[in-house]
């Protein structure tokens, strides 16, 4: 269980490094979407390993709602760049 989660944390560090060193706003949004999906999948893994379905339901909701918020943010920034 520990090995799986440590590997997932290391994978999560890749987009965090990307968002830190890249100045392009679209690269940052891509990294944000990657982090949002990875964290919710980690929540799902933890919930399955612990057998705690309350956390599992929260993980599913975060997984679906996070993408919706990302689409809203991307759309607003796209409208800003158009002028």
């Amino acid at each position: 269980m520990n090995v799986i989660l440590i590997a997932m944390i290391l994978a999560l560090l890749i987009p965090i490094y990307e968002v830190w060193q890249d100045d392009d706003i679209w690269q940052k949004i891509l990294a944000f979407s990657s982090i949002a999906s990875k964290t919710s999948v980690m929540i799902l893994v933890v919930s399955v390993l612990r057998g705690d379905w309350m956390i599992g339901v929260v993980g599913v909701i975060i997984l679906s709602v996070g993408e919706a918020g990302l689409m809203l943010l991307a759309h607003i920034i796209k409208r800003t760049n158009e002028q």
Partner: protein
Amino acid sequence: MDDSYIYAIVALLPLAAVMLTVQVNPYNALVMRGILGAIAALVYAVLGAADVALTEALVGTMLAITLYAVAVRSSLVMRIGVLKDELSQTNDSHPFTQLIANLRTIASKYYLRLELLPYPDPQSLDQALMEKEVHATCIERSQLDIQDAAQKSEPQPYHTAIRIRRLYNILQTELTSPATHLTYIPVPDSGEKH
């Protein structure tokens, strides 16, 4: 207790927070805030607080980001009033297009958005500046005083009036285009209109 991975997950939270605080560009900071919200939701869920994690995901990454994006978009803007027939210029070597391109570079350096509002004649342009509809007006000098129309070949064919002291200071130090003359016009507070 074999929960040592919890320490690694919790360590991500201050890392994301430090990255958020060193951001200068407001739009990049918004994206970083979303990342911080996602990581915080992960930490809360792993520590067993499912309700807190749900609230953080809904409010922190969706509602706050959307509201702040709208607020940043509508407040970080520099509105310049220009004459309608100036806007129809498409020639790249025309001094007006070069001046606007120069202003746009300066504005993007300060993360501002440049908005050009067209007005039909110099009187309504002046009125708009006094009523705080625009932050600055940019107008050809020959339109201002007819007797100077003969001096069209002078080095500063445009006249830019700015009503905000800070914008005036920025433009005075950074503007490289020789096409315009800058003046600062303080507009008194009317007390009723904001």
